[in-house]
């Protein structure tokens, strides 16, 4: 089971945090800080795995991947395979990239809800439900289409919706 997904930048600012077991906000912050402290102390050319038991309690592993200014961090238990999770991060980032066209840190900050939608398509209640990037994209596109449709009808006059639809 996946316990948490975090995205943070190289300065330790959280860009996304999703915990699949409920944790109070303070605890979440503490964990994020703990993770960042470990991450930033790691050398360049080492493995992507970290022994996370001291931060997240027994039976927890951590896999991270460093892209440009961002760390993508997945925390999970022994029912997942580390290398596979590394590729899951890859799928996630690839999907983000397809979705935002050349994703950058800023997209993740502003496309906050969209990033969550993507993540929800991949991981549901802590389990990996979808691993095909194109399937996820299909779902996301459908969602935004329907959202835009329902939005146009109920919320905003045509003229205003123009600038919002990409």
């Amino acid at each position, binding site marked *: 089971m996946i316990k948490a997904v975090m995205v943070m930048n190289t300065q330790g*600012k*959280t860009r996304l945090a*999703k915990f699949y077991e*409920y944790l109070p906000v*303070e605890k979440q*912050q503490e964990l994020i800080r703990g993770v960042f402290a470990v991450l930033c102390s790691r050398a360049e050319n*080492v*493995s*992507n*795995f*970290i*022994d996370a*038991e*001291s931060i997240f309690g027994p039976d927890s592993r951590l896999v991270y991947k460093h*892209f*440009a*200014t961002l760390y993508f961090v997945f925390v999970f238990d022994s*029912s997942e*395979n*580390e*290398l*596979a999770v*590394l*590729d899951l991060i*890859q*799928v996630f980032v*690839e999907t983000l*990239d397809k979705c*935002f*066209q*050349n*994703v*950058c*840190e*800023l*997209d993740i900050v*502003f*496309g*906050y*809800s969209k990033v*969550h*939608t993507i993540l*929800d398509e991949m991981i*549901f*209640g802590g*389990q990996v*439900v*979808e*691993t*095909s*990037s194109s*399937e996820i994209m299909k*779902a996301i596109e459908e969602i935004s289409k329907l*959202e*835009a449709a*329902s939005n146009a009808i109920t*919320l*905003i006059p045509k003229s205003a919706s123009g600038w*919002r639809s*990409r």
Partner: protein
Amino acid sequence: MEQLKTIGRELAMGSQGGFYQSKEFLDLVKSIGEARSKAEEDRIVLGEIETLKRRVSEPDIPKRKMKEYILRLVYVEMLGHDASFGYIHAVKMTHDDSLLVKRTGYLAVTLFLNEDHDLIILIVNTIQKDLKSDNYLVVCAALNAVCKLINEETIPAVLPQVVDLLAHPKEAVRKKAIMALHRFYQKSPSSVSHLVSNFRKRLCDNDPGVMGATLCPLFELVSTDVNSYKDLVISFVSILKQVAERRLPKAYDYHQMPAPFIQIKLLKILALLGSGDKQASENMYTVVGDIFRKCDSSSNIGNAVLYECICCVSSIYPNPKLLESAADAISRFLKSDSHNLKYMGIDALGRLIKISPEIAEQHQLAVIDCLEDPDDTLKRKTFELLYKMTKSTNVEVIVDRMIDYMISINDNHYKTEIASRCVELAEQFAPSNQWFIQIMNKVFEHAGDLVNIKVAHNLMRLIAEGFGEDDDSADSQLRSSAVDSYLHILGEPKIPSVFLQLICWVLGEYGTADGKYSASYITGKLSDVAEAYSNDETVKAYAVTALMKIYAFEIAAGRKVDMLPECQSLMEQFLASHSTDLQQRAYELQAVIGLDAHAVESIMPSDASCEDIEVDKALSFLNGYIQDSIEKGAQPYIPESERSGMLNISNFRNQDHHGASSHGLKFEAYELPKQTVQSRIPPATLASTEFVPVPEPMSVRESYPTTIVPSASSDAESTELKLRLDGVQKKWGRQTHSPATSTSSSTSKKTVNGIKQVDGSNTSNSSTWETYDSRKHVEINSEKQKLAASLFGGSSKTEKKPATGHKISKPSSHMVEKSHVRKSSMEIASEKKALVHQPPDLLDFGEPTVQSSDPPSVDPFKELEGLLEPTTQLGSTAAAATNSPDIMGLFTETPGGTHNKDDSDILSSLSKQPVTNMVGGATSTQVAQSSKGPNRKDSLEKDSLVRQMGVTPSSPNPNLFKDLLG
């Protein structure tokens, strides 16, 4: 140049209409990005919270605005600030009709609330309604909330709807309904136990996505109860076979592997099902073997599947052929330059050595390399492996290494773990007592506050009892060496409390035993300890008791006792201590000193901490007293069982300790307060180990059973009681140590066995290396060789002759791997660049040389771009293989190359080599070209935007920014 940047920004803003949040939000993000310190950030966020508080309470906010406020709240909470004032608004949003608003509301509540929050009650109704919605996206959003927000009590409210959704026409909904059901199962297995069969049914779903998702709950179900799912082995095997044969839609291919994530899940399940089951395992051999052959070991995901295969092979009933493939795969992992693969290799090795221990030896040097690697994760994994393969032959080297590492780290959690492992290994395999005590001293010195107090008690017992042999001189030698080392250690500045307690106890018992040190020397040391650590009551108590023992031994030996002045002042201080425990000890000390030699000897016999105390369970010494009382007209005692007429005594005891929590009402009398046993109570006869407690509310009697319990129960049964016993021991060294005799003597016997093993395994080991001699292939420095030899049980002769065949293969494979491992993302980036430079109609020029012709560039922003199409990595590996002049290297790499064109015939590939690689290279470049939609310009724009927004606060330009947005 400046102008160009501006244009870039403008373009970026224009094309990125995606940033549809308002300017306020942009400003917030920007100012947080520019914040120089955490305090500044907090100030900004608190300001934002005030604004939001004001805004959300305004009447008639347009929904679109409200949605944005909620998202800002989510953002604020992500930064660690309390946004609870807005929760109710998020809940309200879930009631909305608009899909967009509703989804945002659901997103916010799943992030904000937990299943026990007060507001949940307001959502359950909405969820119920939404689960029945016609719009499948609404249903999905509701299911998402169900996973996060429904607790045991509310499951029945939504369960029927969720079950209905299992047959929903949309596969996305079915998938999520399965997961929701799984979540219910996790939260409360009983509430959905009648629905478990649904998981089996969904395994046959038409949609591979749903099937793949169903594997998650099935994995969990199988791991809790293997036997009821044995019938599914055939189905799982056939699914795995179909997946491996690429029967699934192309969309599930990932880096040219057919649905690797599904393969991994299936292999995990098969590993569970085949464990210890020969018949089930036999069904799996073919398919697992196939996967071993088909796996593409040049991609990360291929290795993930390979690793899972190894795990599966090492879990199911062993099959020699598969074990061989697994060993091959492991050696490929370990030889790799990638730390990730080494890590997996070490882990896999740890699994496989359980079945075939001999494979560890051929990897000894790789293991040692990992041990010396700067990567902490890898190091720890390697220690885990070493821990698993410790034998009496290599225990010294391994434990030494562990201790060195333990001293070097600061992480308390891991320090504790590794300390307890050291202790465990030392206890199990110690070659000599001396060594054992040395190791323990080191562990206590560096991690004393982290190890379990029981470890210290075990060591005390060990020193007191010796090692079970009848050789008294050896025992006393051990003790005096312990005393020597402790007196030495006492000179160190800061010693952990547990270690001090141990030292005090040993000094008290054996400080003067061999006559080397005078009583005044030892007592002086002890009072120094009590003074130096004056805020540690436990240490002081140990010190006082030790003093008392020393004095008692002196008196018993007929020598005159002169209390040192510092001892005297210490005693005065303790006599008036606030701690009653210390006070009592001090008074006892005073009393003991006043007694004559004979009395002292019977209270405090020297070196008697492990004598048995004989307990008269029938309390026969009271017979006279009872007789008297009865004669005087007292009521005779009626046993408990007769009085209540139903409970037998052992039941009573059980209930007393464990049953209380399971019963609503407690009918038995409360446990009596524990009393310490006065040593002066004359020990009576009767030495049977059976023990029947007498639940009579008489304190003197009761105190016997409670102290004796541990001897009757097994060691593991009641640690709590045992600990209490240890507490008592401080005061009355003699008695309470005795009950544990049986356990500790068994430990020491084990050690004896271990020593005996040494000879046997030594000979067998040396014979095995002879065969491995030929496998050594690299020149290694002698120090490493020595280490390897001692770890794996051999002398340095092991690594003499590198066999020629392997010598060739090594550098070549090395080279190949290097080219593929070295910072893959960078490599891709450089390759990308090369491709971008080419005009798009050069598609056919995709020759393997492309990537090498361009110098690698290190543009960090390229890295992100690089993840667009990592498949190119494959091509580059194949290309590297062609460049390598070595035939062996080509041979090893062929599977990777040939894979691209579905040619699994390895033998033929040798001759076809150049062609294959051409194909491999060309396809991958093609793929890269065609999928390469976005271009450099795009990323440049982004880059500049990022910089300008202050996310990387190097060159912020707020004014310009305002203009753009304005």
